[in-house]
């Protein structure tokens, strides 16, 4: 044995080492465990050196690398700046194109819905002159353009045609100092003359100091100048002062906000209604009338299909009831017996207010309380007359009835039938008219 070991010592050591490592591998594979000690030693020995090398590399090679990288930064920066400039120009061009498309679309929509006959035109240049505000448009007499025609946009008036050439026209803008147009305020119907000032704002002249004009109020064309049809928006008041004789009303023309690019020239103008103040703001979106569902409001039989509101239906119902009793609806003071309307509970008419004698002149208050024919309150007036009075005969306690008559819903809380009280016996004070929840509309005036 000793001879064997001494003779084959190297081979024996080799075999021992190989077998030991094989066993080590076998152990690791079999038990799926690692030999952390050797790994920890090796990693601990190697990684600090590696970190040091990395540190040295970062501060030497990294520096050299950065130097060579920075050599190309200047040219790259110039290239990027050039590219950035080109992209900015392209972006600006695309935005401009998009804006033009939006304006053209708005113009075409306005042109389609406007009753006036118009021709679309594009501003192609400015007129010369130190203080003049005139532009050329690409439509002329060959397109039917004549001097004195109004030029508008969907936002408001822009100016008027002062010269019509075959292929182009000269348009005086509202900001031109020589421009003038008749205007009227929306709320108080204050009339005046719009004058250009050569600036972005315009002046409304010849409005009396006593008349009331608020800031933010809209002015519309009055149609008095025979150039601009009535009812086109002019602008919004920015400041109001009392002058020596007339008010100094300054407004910003709404038709020129954001520049003038595309306009409409009115070949044949149609007067429009000046909108009420509630819906006056241009661009204010009003939702369409809600569609009726059969379960919400009972539909009386024989109702005309053109009636759309609850007040109209209620009025029609009472009118039919009055005609059935041979009494004119809204005429005189003898109201029909509306308790006979199907669906309304027959109340005891014991304490109805007696109608005033027909020969007596009703007082002013009573006249005001008396509803006008055709108004929604007129439909409620007979109902008020049939309400019993608690002072004379208190009504016996009855189970709470559910009103089945059509109800003019003016408040969301009134939509619940349970929330609506029955015709309770309290008529000492006048009952609230059904239309009281509606904001009072401006009475029809004759100055429209």
């Amino acid at each position, binding site marked *: 044995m000793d001879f064997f070991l001494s003779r084959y010592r190297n081979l024996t050591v080799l075999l021992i080492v190989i077998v030991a490592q094989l066993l*080590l*591998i076998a152990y*690791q594979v079999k038990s799926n465990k*690692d030999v952390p000690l*050797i790994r920890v030693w090796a990693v601990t020995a*190697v990684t600090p*050196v*590696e970190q040091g090398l990395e540190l040295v590399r970062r501060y030497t090679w990294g520096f050299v690398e950065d130097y060579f990288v920075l050599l190309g930064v200047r040219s790259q920066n110039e290239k990027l700046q050039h590219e950035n400039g080109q992209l900015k120009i392209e972006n600006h061009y695309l935005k401009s194109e998009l804006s033009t498309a939006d304006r053209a679309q708005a113009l075409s929509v306005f042109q389609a819905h406007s009753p006036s006959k118009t021709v679309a035109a594009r501003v192609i240049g400015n007129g010369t002159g130190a203080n003049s505000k005139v532009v050329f448009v690409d439509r002329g007499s060959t397109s039917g353009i004549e001097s004195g025609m109004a030029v508008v946009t969907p936002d408001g008036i822009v100016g008027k045609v002062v010269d019509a050439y075959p292929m182009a026209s000269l348009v005086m803008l509202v900001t031109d100092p020589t421009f003038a147009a008749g205007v009227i305020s929306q709320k108080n119907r204050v009339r005046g003359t719009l004058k250009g000032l050569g600036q972005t704002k315009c002046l409304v002249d010849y409005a009396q100091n006593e008349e009331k004009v608020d800031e933010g109020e809209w002015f519309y064309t009055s149609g008095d100048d025979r150039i601009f049809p009535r009812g086109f928006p002019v602008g919004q008041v920015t400041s109001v002062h009392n002058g020596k004789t007339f008010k100094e009303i300054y407004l910003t023309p709404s038709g020129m906000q954001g520049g003038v690019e595309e306009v409409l020239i009115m070949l044949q103008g149609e007067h429009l209604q000046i909108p009420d103040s509630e819906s006056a703001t241009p661009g204010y979106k009003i939702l369409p009338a809600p569609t009726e569902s059969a379960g919400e409001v009972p539909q009386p039989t024989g109702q005309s299909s053109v009636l759309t509101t609850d007040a109209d239906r209620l009025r029609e119902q009472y009118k039919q009831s009055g005609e059935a009793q041979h009494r004119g609806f809204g005429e005189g003071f003898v109201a029909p017996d509306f308790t006979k309307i199907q669906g309304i509970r027959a109340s005891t008419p014991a304490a109805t207010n007696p109608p005033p004698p027909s020969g007596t002149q009703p007082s002013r208050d009573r006249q005001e309380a008396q509803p006008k024919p055709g108004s929604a309150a007129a439909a409620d007036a007979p109902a008020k007359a049939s309400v019993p009075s608690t002072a004379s005969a208190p009504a016996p306690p009855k189970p709470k009835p559910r009103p089945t008559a059509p109800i003019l819903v003016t408040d969301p809380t009134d939509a619940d039938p349970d929330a609506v009280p029955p015709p309770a016996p309290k008529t000492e004070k006048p009952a609230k008219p059904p239309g009281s929840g509606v904001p009072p509309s401006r009475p029809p005036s004759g100055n429209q």
Partner: protein
Amino acid sequence: MSEYTERLLTSPSRKNQSDRLRLVWLIIIPLIAILFQVYVPRFVSFLSYLELPLLITVHFALGRRGPIASVFYGMSIGLVQDSLSHQPIGMFGIVKTLVGYFAASVSQRFDVENPIVTFILSFFFYFFHQFFYWVLARALLGEAMIFDPQQTLLFGLLNAAVALPLFHILDKLKVAA
């Protein structure tokens, strides 16, 4: 070599100092080779084919001409390599143990100072190292490794080419030590 110099070298203190220096080199050089293998290919990827720890093992075994020392040297380098890898410890250890043994055995029969012999031996041991590692990986670990003989031969040539100047430098360092 003068008489004074011979006396200096044969004196016990000088001899011990020289041995310590050689021992430090024996530790540092494989460590540098392993560091090179794990660090440099991060930045110069085509240098990943260089198997410097193997070349260091071959150089040690050819120079020492002692099989047992070469066995342990190769085993140590292989185990450190295994430790820095994600495989069971012992794979590189076994392969480099065999390389160290065979290189030491061959060095007793050939003139390993000849560059051609060094080139051929380096090429042969690289190929043997790669092939035997592939055999072990398939046999012991069941890994489906791919052995590309052509690529291995090419890399073997490149490693052998690198081995010539590397061995020359290491010989200089050994003499200096």
